[in-house]
């Protein structure tokens, strides 16, 4: 199957797996396998950052690849780590010339039969959530078009992961959104009450509430609720500036 067609089929299967609500690990295993077919590399792997920030090996196209990737993490050096930390692709990493760059990782990867390494970032809004490792064993190097195709795979996988994470935490996120909005609504209403009572601007009203909350070690949302409910008298709030005549 020509490369472009295989790329499209891969991406469609990735998207299909989302529709059927597959596991992220299965999705990324599919991605790793298809990187090998589409890009013509010897092996591919995917690392994702855990919530604490450390990278984990999530998928590898072969056992040899998995061992090398695990070693990369253990020795704390290698193309995927460089890519993740530098937030930039690592391209055409020549393992034979990498004894300074990756003194522990390079020999292990060479022993496993690999010659060239690439790592493509999985980027989301400026943050990098993981990276795709591509290892060549002496075939032709990746062309610029290959790298673009690989990055496209990485980008769609990234969006897919985010969409799936959101779906699995949707109840929590919806609650958080509603709670945040409700608090803000009360704060904005309270600003209006104080602005009117004290002849203040909205900013000054907000500042007055913040000061009151801080001085009394209270939550701003509770202070706002008190202002709106009239359990806190507007007169209790000293204006940072003298009230303007209305």
């Amino acid at each position: 199957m020509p490369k472009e067609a295989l790329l499209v089929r891969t991406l469609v299967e990735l998207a299909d797996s989302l529709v059927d609500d597959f596991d992220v690990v299965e999705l990324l295993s599919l991605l790793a396998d298809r990187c090998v077919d589409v890009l013509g590399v010897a092996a591919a792997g995917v690392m994702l950052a855990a919530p604490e920030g450390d990278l984990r090996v999530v998928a590898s196209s072969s056992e040899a690849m998995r061992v090398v990737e695990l070693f990369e993490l253990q020795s704390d050096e290698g193309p995927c780590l460089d890519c993740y930390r530098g937030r930039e692709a690592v391209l055409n990493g020549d393992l034979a010339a990498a004894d300074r760059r990756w003194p522990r990782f390079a020999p292990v990867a060479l022993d496993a039969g690999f010659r060239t390494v690439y790592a493509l970032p999985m980027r989301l809004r400026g943050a990098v959530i993981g990276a795709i490792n591509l290892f060549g064993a002496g075939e032709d190097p990746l062309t610029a078009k290959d790298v673009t195709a690989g990055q496209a795979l990485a980008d769609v996988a990234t969006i897919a992961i985010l969409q799936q994470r959101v779906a699995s935490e949707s109840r929590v996120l919806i609650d958080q959104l509603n709670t945040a909005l409700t608090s803000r609504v009360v704060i904005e209403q309270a600003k209006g009450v104080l602005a009117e009572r004290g002849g203040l601007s909205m900013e000054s009203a907000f500042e007055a509430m913040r000061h009151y909350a801080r001085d009394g070690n209270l939550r701003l949302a509770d202070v706002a609720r008190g202002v709106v409910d009239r359990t806190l008298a507007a007169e209790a709030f000293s204006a940072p500036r003298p009230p303007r005549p209305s």
Partner: protein
Amino acid sequence: MAGARLLRILARLETGAAGLGPARLCEVCAEVMAMTGAGIMLMSGEVARGSICSSNKVSALIEDLQYTLGEGPCVDAYRQDEPVLEPDLADRGGRRWAAFTPRAVEAGAQAVFGFPLRVGAARIGALNLYRDHPGSLDNDQHADALVLAGVAARAVLGMQADAPPGMLGAELEAGSDFRFVVQQASGMVSAQLDVSVGEALIRLRAYAFAHDRPLAAVAHDVVARRLRLSDDPAPGQER
């Protein structure tokens, strides 16, 4: 194939540096659907809570009308939890939405469609689509809209995902319009008339309706101290 449709839509979202903010999300919705404009309303417990985004002024007006009047394609789509299609607003919209329709048509909307935004079993709002000429969605477009609504819902929640506890997500704070000015005006009116904020909001709505103005515009006037509701007689009373 479901995957191909979803892929085509996912591929329009952006990762990278800028990422996908509210404005771009609405643009993508309008582009994917080949609509004149698109908007996303956030709703909760039968109430419109704000506008996530609108791709142009007419979409913004369509949302504003629904926010002010409490009727329209998005309101219905959210409440009924199913797509609401009006391919010829000028001809038939008046029977569904007596107040919304003439104002939307005057602004240039000839066809309007509302799709609920769902994640799993939960609904968070609705996607607004309009065209400046009448016409139905074909089967492909309808299927695209269903997928797009799901993707958009997740994208919106994704914007809340990294927010500090109790606060709105940064992208929503910066790019969406929750009409806080209406809340501020409610506070001011509640102090002016010595009524609850709930009552104050009702008075603001009544004023907006009586003067045929958007609620947010009336609120802006109150906050800017160009308008005091206590100066206005209650509806039905002579001055």
